[in-house]
């Protein structure tokens, strides 16, 4: 049976916000005359309870199947009215709004054309309404488990949080032991707490947790599926296992910059030149260099960071405080030792950092502003050559131990993981978050979240807080048990589709794929966000986004350009359309 639209149009006065500059009576009469309009009414506040009641009654009594409200912006009250029509049994997507306040009465008060514009906007909404289709908000069942890739401090924390919330977690770690880079640290600032004290309870809790399975020496080789239902193939030694997960947390961490690259510092050449990472080991052995305690220690900041010549323009965020902590450690253990830190800017930004920096200076560490240019040998000692930019003089500082504060770089295999999950990476090579401000743990792939330094350099506190943020994001679909799918998504009319794939190429979300057998494009409704880039990329109109279809838009254009109904000649209704002057 052919569908016949039966449309009700409701025009809001919004107090006098609309009625003061729009001739409501004329507009209502006009609306009533539009094709397929069964009833047109006006009311002081359509959004008020009596206003909504009007609509509900008409749906029931006049058997309306499409509703148009002409009032304020849909961004304001579309959900209100959708809920209203839904409560009267109509699909919420069979509703359309004409924005005659923000776009009309408020911006052209006192213009003769205001009433005409209101009519046009209503005609346009009615034209669209006649072509609206009911849409179903679908839910997808979620597998109540999560996969965490990476067993550093971020991965451990994320796994723990998700498991604590009641879900099964598989933690995949490539190395033989969990703990990541944090396990290599000796102490942590500001309380100079041994790092293992920090890490051990976390590792023990993860280890003992009944809902966490830790897979060591294991790597994820393939990931299929989408939010709620991922399937990962994990290789552990020679065995392959399939892990299903409702959501995935990536916590693959970073790599330490290779100090050999900075030839001018002679790392690997001079035994007295070590890195901040070496320092951690050395300090565990009470900091002996060739069996002697060093007397002149120089730290150099920003090795591998803030360096465009290396292609690492970014700041590694942790080195300032690492060097500060190590410098303080030297001053405490070897009070006779002179400690100098060469820096460009001291980035003591976190909670308690500046205070710690204050402590480090007052315990006698000398901060000299300058990025050293080279290290030379002089007898037993080294000379660090730099401009002290506060003196404006070149200085040569003697050292028997030089510590290079190494930056972080993205993992070399992050490109592979990125392609495995279709993640994007930012210019610095770290994984890209969905939005740098408001979605720092999300990725462009729904159900996949980022924790820790794989997204960019972070200290332990920030890694943990981001890991827990990722855990929150990952546990939400698990807690709900279902994922709601955007209703207004794209669909493909297969008989029109030639499978050219232009739609897939413009899709940010990887929601379109070529069906291997039918040779047409198919839409993954879970991934699709409904932006419509695909629809306009398709020359044959085979891809359409529900609720914003080609037919609907063309119908709107048609009435705006040519008027609604052929009976409406100029002399009958002078305000028929935008075009009909």
């Amino acid at each position: 049976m052919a569908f016949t639209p039966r449309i009700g149009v409701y025009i809001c006065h919004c107090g006098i916000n609309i009625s003061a500059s729009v001739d409501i009576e004329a507009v209502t009469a006009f609306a009533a005359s539009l094709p397929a309009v069964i009833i047109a009414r006006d009311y002081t506040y359509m959004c008020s309870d009596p206003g909504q009641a009007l609509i509900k009654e008409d749906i029931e009594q006049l058997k309306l199947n499409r509703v148009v409200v002409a009032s304020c912006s849909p961004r304001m009250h579309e959900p209100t009215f959708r809920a209203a029509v839904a409560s009267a049994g109509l699909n919420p997507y069979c509703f359309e709004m004409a924005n005659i306040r923000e776009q009309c009465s408020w911006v052209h008060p006192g213009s003769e054309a205001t009433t005409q514009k209101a009519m046009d906007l209503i005609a346009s909404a009615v034209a669209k309404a006649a072509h609206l289709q009911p849409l179903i908000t679908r839910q997808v069942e979620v597998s109540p488990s999560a996969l965490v890739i990476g067993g550093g401090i971020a991965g451990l924390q994320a796994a723990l949080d998700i498991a604590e919330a009641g879900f099964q977690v598989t933690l995949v770690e490539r190395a033989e032991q969990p703990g990541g880079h944090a396990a290599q640290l000796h102490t942590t600032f500001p309380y100079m707490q041994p790092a293992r004290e920090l890490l051990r309870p976390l590792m023990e809790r993860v280890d003992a947790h009944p809902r966490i399975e830790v897979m060591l020496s294991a790597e994820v080789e393939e990931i299929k599926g989408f939010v709620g239902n991922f399937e990962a193939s994990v290789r552990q030694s020679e065995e392959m296992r399939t892990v299903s997960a409702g959501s995935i947390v990536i916590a693959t961490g970073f790599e330490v910059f290779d100090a050999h690259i900075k030839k001018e510092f002679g790392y690997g050449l001079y035994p007295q030149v070590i890195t901040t990472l070496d320092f951690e080991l050395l300090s565990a052995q009470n900091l002996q260099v060739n069996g002697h305690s060093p007397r002149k220690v120089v730290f150099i900041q920003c090795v591998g960071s803030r360096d465009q010549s290396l292609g690492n323009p970014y700041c590694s965020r942790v080195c300032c405080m690492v060097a500060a902590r190590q410098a303080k450690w030297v001053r405490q253990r070897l009070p006779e030792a002179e400690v100098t830190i060469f820096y460009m800017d001291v980035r003591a930004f976190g909670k308690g950092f500046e205070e710690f920096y204050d402590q480090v200076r007052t315990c006698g560490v000398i901060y000299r502003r300058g990025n050293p240019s080279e290290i030379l040998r002089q007898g037993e000692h080294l000379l660090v050559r730099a401009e002290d930019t506060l003196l404006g003089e070149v200085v040569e500082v003697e050292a028997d131990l030089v510590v290079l504060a190494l930056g972080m770089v993205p993992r070399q295999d992050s490109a592979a993981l990125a392609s495995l999950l279709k993640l994007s990476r930012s210019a610095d090579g770290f994984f890209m978050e969905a939005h740098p401000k408001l979605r720092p743990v999300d990725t462009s792939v729904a159900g996949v979240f980022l924790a820790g330094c794989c997204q960019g350099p972070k200290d332990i506190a920030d890694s943990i807080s981001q890991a827990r943020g990722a855990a929150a994001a990952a546990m939400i679909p698990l807690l709900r048990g279902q994922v709601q799918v955007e209703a207004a998504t794209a669909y493909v009319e297969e008989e029109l589709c030639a499978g050219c794939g232009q739609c897939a190429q413009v899709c940010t979300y990887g929601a379109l794929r070529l069906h291997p057998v039918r040779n047409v494009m198919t839409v993954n409704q879970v991934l699709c966000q409904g932006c419509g880039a695909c629809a306009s990329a398709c020359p044959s109109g085979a891809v359409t986004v529900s609720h914003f279809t080609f037919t609907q838009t063309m119908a709107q254009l048609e009435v705006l350009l040519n008027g609604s109904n052929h009976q409406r000649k100029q002399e009958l209704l002078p305000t028929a359309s935008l075009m009909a002057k």
Partner: protein
Amino acid sequence: MPDNNHFEPRIVAFLCNWCTYTGADLAGTSRLQYPPNVRIIRTMCSSSVDPVYVLKPLLDGADGVLIGGCHPGDCHYQTGNYKTRRRYVAMQEILRASGFDPRRVWLRWISASEGQKFADTITDMVASLKEMGPNPMQVAWAI
């Protein structure tokens, strides 16, 4: 020749839901006044504006078409507006090469907080179209 001073240009605008449509709303809530010559059609993203949506108004005699999107880098769908920009470049070339005045089709990045910019854009566009005069397609019948 029609009298351009008394000629009221007609503009169809396709505005993205997240930025420009919201910017237009802000112009409304801020009571910024602009000429009533524009009819807005809401789209989710500027990248969903089909070439037909621009061509049909031009051929049916609308004087201008405005596409509004988020500023580059701000797209709610991450990169939609970059694609819009390319499509707009292509369309401008085609319009210019086929003898249409490409100045009838505007692409503007207007954010949700730029109510004033939206109002200014409409004001400027109306003024500019008045200067250009009516779209000749308004009377062309054999198309």
